[in-house]
C-alpha cells in the first residue's frame, strides 16, 4: 500500500467514521443490551450482575410465552402465505400478460405504505360493528360472521391477513425477477421434450428459483422479527395479550413499564431467534456464491 498513499488515506478517512459508528451502533449496542439483560435494571440501567435472573423471569411470564408462540405462528403463516401468493402471482404474470406493468404496480404498492397506515385501514375494515361483517349482513347475509379482531383465538390471524396483503407483492417481484433471469432455452428444450406447462414450472423453473426463495425468505423473516407497527396499530396486542408479539412486549417493558433488564432480555431472545432463523438462509446464499 505504499503506492497512492494519499488516496488510500482518503479512502480510509471516509470509511473510519462509518466503521466506528456501525461498530458502536450495531455491535456495541448489541453487547450493551446483552449486558443490561444480565442486570437488575429497571427505570435506569444499573450495572450490577444478577446472572440469568431476567431470563428466568421472562420465561415465567405467560404474556411473554404467548407473544413468543405468536411470533412463531405469525412468522410461519405470514412467510408461507406471502411466498405462496407471491409465487402464484409471479407465475401467472409470467404467462405473457397484457398490462403486466400495471398489475405489477398494483400488487406491489402496499410495500410503499407504512404498516401503521395498513393497520389503521384494516382495523376499520375488520371491525365487526362497521366493516366487512356489517357490510355482508347489510347485503342480506345475516349469518355472516367475521369478528376475528375481537376473538382472542383468532386476532393473531388478522395480523397475517394484513401482513400478507402488504408483503405478497415483494415476494411476487422477487420471484418474477427470478423467472425472468432463467435462460429461456431451458423452457424451449423442455417444451420440445413434450413437458406440459405445469410440469415445466414444478420440476424445472421453481427449483431454479431457490435464490429468489432465499432472498424473499430473508426479507420476510426480517419483517416478521421487526414486526411492531402492525401489531401495535391493528390489534394493540389484544384482545388481552392474545395477539402480542415479542417486539411489542420488548418496547412495553423497556420504555413503558420501566423494566429495562427484562426488556433487554427479551431483545436478546429475539436476536437469538433471528440468528437461528437467518443463518441457514445466509449459509445457503454463501454456498451459492462459491
Amino acid at each position, binding site marked *: 500500500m*505504499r*503506492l*497512492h498513499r*494519499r488516496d488510500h488515506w482518503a479512502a480510509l478517512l471516509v470509511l473510519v467514521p462509518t466503521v466506528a459508528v456501525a461498530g458502536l451502533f450495531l455491535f456495541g449496542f448489541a453487547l450493551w443490551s446483552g449486558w443490561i439483560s444480565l442486570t437488575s435494571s429497571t427505570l435506569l440501567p444499573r450495572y450490577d450482575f444478577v446472572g440469568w435472573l431476567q431470563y428466568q423471569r421472562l420465561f415465567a411470564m405467560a404474556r411473554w410465552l404467548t407473544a413468543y408462540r405468536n411470533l412463531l405462528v405469525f412468522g410461519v403463516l405470514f412467510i408461507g402465505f406471502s411466498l405462496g401468493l407471491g409465487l402464484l402471482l409471479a407465475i401467472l404474470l409470467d404467462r405473457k400478460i397484457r398490462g403486466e406493468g400495471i398489475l405489477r404496480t398494483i400488487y406491489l404498492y402496499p410495500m410503499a405504505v407504512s404498516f401503521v397506515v395498513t393497520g389503521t385501514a384494516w382495523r376499520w375494515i375488520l371491525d365487526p360493528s362497521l366493516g366487512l361483517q356489517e357490510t355482508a349482513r347489510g347485503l342480506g347475509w345475516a349469518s355472516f360472521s367475521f369478528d376475528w379482531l375481537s376473538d382472542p383465538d383468532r386476532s393473531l390471524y388478522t395480523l397475517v391477513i394484513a401482513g400478507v396483503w402488504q408483503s405478497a407483492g415483494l415476494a411476487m417481484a422477487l420471484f418474477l425477477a427470478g423467472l425472468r433471469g432463467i435462460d429461456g432455452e431451458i423452457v424451449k428444450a423442455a417444451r420440445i421434450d413434450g413437458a406440459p406447462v405445469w410440469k415445466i414450472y414444478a420440476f424445472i423453473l421453481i427449483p431454479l428459483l431457490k435464490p429468489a426463495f432465499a432472498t424473499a425468505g430473508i426479507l420476510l423473516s426480517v419483517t416478521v422479527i421487526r414486526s411492531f407497527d402492525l401489531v401495535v396499530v391493528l390489534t394493540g396486542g389484544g384482545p388481552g395479550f392474545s395477539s402480542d408479539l415479542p417486539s411489542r412486549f420488548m418496547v412495553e417493558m423497556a420504555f413503558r413499564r420501566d423494566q429495562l433488564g427484562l426488556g433487554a432480555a427479551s431483545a436478546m431472545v429475539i436476536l437469538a431467534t433471528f440468528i437461528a432463523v437467518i443463518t441457514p438462509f445466509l449459509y445457503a446464499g454463501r454456498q451459492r456464491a462459491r
Partner: protein
Amino acid sequence: MSALSVQDIGKRFGATPVLSGVSLDVAEGEFMVLLGPSGCGKSTLLNIVAGLEEPDAGRIVIGGRDVTRVEPRDRDIAMVFQSYALYPTMSVRRNMGFGLRMRGTSRGETEALVQEAARLLQIEPLLDRRPSQLSGGQRQRVAIGRAIVRKPAVFLFDEPLSNLDAKLRAETRAELRDLHRRLAATMLYVTHDQVEAMTLATRIAVMNRGVIEQVGPPQEIYDRPASLFVAGFTGSPPMNLISGEIVAREGQAIFQPDGGGPALPLPEACRPGKIILGIRPEDVSDPLSLPEISRWIPHILPLRMEATGADTHVTFAWGEARITGRFKPAVTEKNVVPVALDLAKLSLFDPATGLRI
C-alpha cells in the same frame, strides 16, 4: 538513454509468481510489443509500468527517472485500455480534455489541444457526443485521442484492438503504425495477437509464464526463435517441431526423427544426442519453390490437406511426427509429392532446456 526501462521486476499474487525478474529497455521512439498468451503476465507488467499495480521487486525508470514509487498521474504516461474505459457521462471533448484539466491546464489551452488531437484522428465531428453514441471503432479512436492529447513520454496500450471486428482491426492497425511514425512516440503495446505484433512492432518481447523469452525485431523473432515456446507461439500455422536424435554417420550429422522415417542430413556439424528440430511451414513445400542449393527431398507421404484459399496446408507423416507444409493452391493429392525442406532455415532446440542451439 532508454525512454522506458523495466528492471528486474518481480510480482506475485499470493503464492503464485506472476512476473519473475523481468527486464526490458524501450528506446526513445520505439514501438515495443509485449506478446504472449493470456496469463503470461504481460498485462500485469503493463499495469506495473503504469503504476496501477505495485511490483514486489525491481524498478521502473521512465526518461531516466525512477518512478517505481511514483503515482500513475505523475509518471508522464498515457494508457489505452482494452475496454477503452471512456467516462460514460462525459462528452468526447471532456473525455479527451479530462487529463489536462486535472493537471491544471487552462480551459482554452485544453480546448486547443483537444481540437488538435481530434483533427489528427479525424474525430472532430464526434466531439460533442457521448461514448454510448459511438461505434466500437469510434470509441477506440477517442480512447487513443485521450492518450495522445497529453503528449506523454510513453504510451501504453492494453490489447486495444481486441474488441474490434477483423476488418476494422486491420485498418486501425495501419493507422496506429502511421500514428506512431507521425508522433515519433515511445509505445509499449500488449497483445496476444502475433499478427498485430509482427505488423506494429519495431521490437517484440515474447513473454511466457512471467518471463521474457526473447526480445528482438519481428523478423528475427520469426526466423530465429530463441526457444520452443517462441517457435510454437509465432507463425500460423506455427513452426513444425519434430523431436528426434542427432547421430554422426560417416563424419556427417544426421537427424533421425523419433519413430523412424527418412533421416535428414544436417548442413552443419552438430553434437550427437536428443534434439528438437524446427522448421516453418513455408520452408516445407513444392521443391520448385525452394532454393535448389539448400533443399532436401525426403520420401514422406501426405496425410491430409487443408485449403485456406491463398495457399493450401498439407500435413505429412514423418516418423511419428506430423509436419505441415505450405503449398500453392493448385496442389492436389496427386502432385503433392515430392515435398522439399529448406535446410537453410532449420532451427534446432535443446529438448531439456527448450532453448535454441
